[in-house]
C-alpha cells in the first residue's frame, strides 16, 4: 500500500474523531484562503478552470455514488444535469430577461415571475432532478447491468426531446442565454464541500456498507434483510440530486444552455472522470476531475496550429508548423479512456481513499521503508 492512500478503513471511523475533525476544519480554512487568493490573483481563464474542476468533481461524485459505490450503471446523467440547469435558470433569470428570451412563444405564466436566490435555485434544481430520478427509478432499477445503462440513456434522451419541444417552458431548441452568472469560486466550492460532506457521511456509515453489499451481491443482501430496491432508489435519487446541482452550477457558469449540449458526450465525460479517478473512490473522483479537466483543456492546443522549434543542443527539432486539427482533442480523449480501461482499469486511485489517519501514518511508513533493510518488517499497517 502506498501512503498517503490506504485501504478503506473497516466500517465507521475507528480512529481519532477529534483529531480528524480539527484537521478537516483546518483544511477548509486553508482552502478558503487559497480560493480568496486565487480569485484575486489568477486570470479569468485559470479561474474558469478552477470552477470547472469543482463542478466536474460534484458531477463525478454523484455518478460515482450511483455506479462505483452502488453498482448501478446509469448513463442518464446528462438528463439530470439538464433538469437541474433548466430549473435553476428559470429561477434566476429576471422577468425582463424572460420576456425577451421567450420570443417564439411566451413563457408559461407562473414561471414568468419566478425569482429566487441563487442558493435556492441550485437547491431546487437538485430537488427536481431527484424527483425525476425517483420517477425513472421505479421502472428501471430492477433491470441489471447493461439494460439499466440503456434504459437510463433512453430516459436522458426523452428528457432532451421534452426540453426541445416544450417551448413555453424551456424555450425549445434555442435555449437560454444570459443566465446570471452567480457560479463563482465560492459557490462552486461551497457546493463541492456540501456534496463531499453528504456523500462521505453516508458512505462512511453502515449505509455505505449496505450500498456496497448491494453492489457486490444483490441476492445475498436481500437475504440479509436489506430492501435492495429501496436502497438503490435512494442512491439513485441522491446521485440525481447532486447531478442536478452540478447542472445548475454549470448553467450559471457558462450562462448559456440548450438541450443539444446535454447529450451523451457530456455523460461520457463524467464517466471518464469517474473511471479515470477510480470507480468506488471519493478521492479518485476529485482527483480525476482535476486531472481530466486540465487534460481536456490542455488538449485544446492540438486543435490550433502551433510551431515546434526546439534546440536540444545535440540536435534541433523543427522548425515545424503543426496545423491545428479540429476534433483531434476528442480522438485523444477517447484513446485515453480506452487506454485506461484496458491497461489500468482501477484508474488513478483504485478504491483507496485519502484519510487523515493514513496521512499521519505517512512519516512512520517512510521511516519504515527507508530505515529497515529487510522487506517484511516495515510492511503492513
Amino acid at each position: 500500500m502506498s501512503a498517503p492512500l490506504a485501504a478503506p478503513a473497516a466500517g465507521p471511523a475507528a480512529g481519532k474523531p477529534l483529531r480528524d475533525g480539527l484537521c478537516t476544519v483546518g483544511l477548509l480554512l486553508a482552502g478558503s484562503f487559497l480560493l480568496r487568493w486565487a480569485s484575486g490573483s489568477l486570470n479569468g481563464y485559470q479561474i474558469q478552470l478552477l470552477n470547472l474542476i469543482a463542478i466536474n468533481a460534484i458531477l463525478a461524485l454523484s455518478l460515482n455514488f450511483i455506479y462505483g459505490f452502488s453498482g448501478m450503471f446509469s448513463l442518464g446523467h446528462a438528463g439530470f444535469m439538464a433538469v437541474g440547469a433548466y430549473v435553476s435558470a428559470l429561477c434566476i433569470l429576471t422577468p425582463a430577461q424572460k420576456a425577451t428570451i421567450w420570443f417564439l412563444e411566451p413563457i408559461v405564466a407562473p414561471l414568468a415571475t419566478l425569482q429566487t436566490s441563487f442558493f435556492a435555485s441550485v437547491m431546487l434544481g437538485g430537488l427536481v432532478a431527484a424527483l425525476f430520478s425517483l420517477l425513472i427509478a421505479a421502472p428501471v432499477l430492477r433491470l441489471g447491468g447493461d439494460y439499466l445503462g440503456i434504459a437510463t440513456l433512453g430516459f436522458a434522451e426523452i428528457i432532451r426531446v421534452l426540453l426541445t419541444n416544450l417551448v413555453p417552458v424551456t424555450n425549445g431548441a434555442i435555449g437560454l442565454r444570459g443566465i446570471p452568472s452567480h457560479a463563482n469560486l465560492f459557490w462552486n466550492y461551497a457546493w463541492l464541500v456540501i456534496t463531499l460532506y453528504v456523500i462521505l457521511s453516508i458512505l462512511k456509515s453502515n449505509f455505505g456498507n449496505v450500498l456496497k453489499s448491494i453492489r457486490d451481491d444483490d441476492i445475498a443482501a436481500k437475504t440479509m434483510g436489506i430492501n435492495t430496491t429501496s436502497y438503490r432508489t435512494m442512491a439513485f435519487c441522491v446521485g440525481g440530486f447532486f447531478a442536478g446541482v452540478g447542472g445548475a452550477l454549470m448553467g450559471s457558469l457558462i450562462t448559456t444552455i440548450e438541450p443539444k449540449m446535454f447529450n451523451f458526450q457530456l455523460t461520457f465525460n463524467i464517466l471518464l472522470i469517474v473511471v479515470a479517478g477510480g470507480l468506488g473512490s471519493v478521492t479518485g473522483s476529485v482527483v480525476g476531475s482535476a486531472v481530466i479537466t486540465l487534460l481536456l483543456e490542455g488538449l485544446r492546443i492540438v486543435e490550433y496550429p502551433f510551431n515546434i522549434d526546439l534546440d536540444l543542443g545535440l540536435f534541433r527539432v523543427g522548425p515545424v508548423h503543426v496545423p491545428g486539427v479540429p476534433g483531434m482533442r476528442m480522438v485523444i480523449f477517447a484513446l485515453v479512456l480506452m487506454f485506461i480501461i484496458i491497461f489500468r482499469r482501477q484508474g488513478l486511485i483504485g478504491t483507496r481513499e485519502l484519510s487523515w489517519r493514513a496521512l499521519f501514518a505517512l512519516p512512520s511508513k517512510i521511516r519504515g521503508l527507508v530505515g529497515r533493510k529487510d522487506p517484511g518488517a516495515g510492511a503492513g499497517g
Partner: protein
Amino acid sequence: MSFELFVQNVFNSMTVGSLYALIAIGYTMVYGILRFINFAHGDVFMVGAYLIFFAEMLVPWPVAALIAIAGASLLGILVDQTAYRPLREAPRISALISAIGVSFLLENLAVVVFTGLPRPAVQPAWMVRPIAVGGLRVLPLTFLVPLVTAALVMGLLYVVYRTRPGLAMRAISRDIETTRMMGVSINRIIALTFGLGSALAAAAGIMWAMRYPQIHPYMGVFPGFKAFIAAVVGGIGSIRGAVLGGLLLGTVEVMAIAFNPTLSGYRDAFAFVLLIVILIFMPTGLLGEKNKDKI
C-alpha cells in the same frame, strides 16, 4: 389520409424498418455470444456509408459496394481484436466503456479525416428514377431496400443454422466455456460474428446513403441507438427478433408521424419510449428467452 399516401408510408416503414433491422442484427449477434453491447456498431454503419461515398467515385457502383462492405467488415473485426479482446476476462462494464470509447474514437476520427461537412453520396440514376406503379410514383430504391435486406437476412440465417461456423456461434451463445472445451477456436468465431454483423451494418449504411444522401460523422448515432432498441424489443440474442424489432420500430416511427404530423418533433423519442415500455413489461423482448439466476 389518402390511400396513396398510406401506401407511401407503408413503403417508407418497410425501408426504414429494414435498415434498422440490418443494423440490429449486428448488435444482437454480438450480445448473443458475448453478452456485451457493442456501442461502436452504429459507427461501423457510418464508416460503411463513407466508404461507398469514396469508392463509388473510383470504381463502378457494384464494386464500390463490395469494397465498402469488406472494409467495414474488417473494421469490425479490428475493433474487436484491439479494443474488446483484451477485456474478455474483465468485468463486463470495462468492455462496455471500451466500446463507448471506440465509438467516440471513430466518430471523432471521421471528423478529423473527413471534416464534419455532410457529404452528398452519389445515387446511381437507375435507383432514383421513379417508376409508375398503379397510380403511384415510386423510387426503385424503395423496393430494393426490403428485398436486399430479406436476401441478406436469408443468407445470414443460412450461415447461422446450416453451417459449422454458424453452429459454433449458436453453441457459444449457449455456453461459452463448454464450447471452448470442445476445441472450438472461440476467437475466430467471435471475429466471424463481428465480421458478419459489420458487413450487414455496412450494407445498411450503403442503402441509407442512397436513400438519405447526406453523410456525416455522427450519422450512425441515432440509427445505432434505435437499432439497438429494436434488437432489445425483438429479444436480444435472437436474429429473428432483431428483424422483427427493426420492422416494428420503423413502422411505429413512420406511421405515428404520418397519422399525427404534430408529433414529428418527438420522432426520436418513440424509440426510447418503446424501449422503456418493453423493458418494463417484457424485458426479454418479444422473441427472447428468459434467463434465470442460479443460487
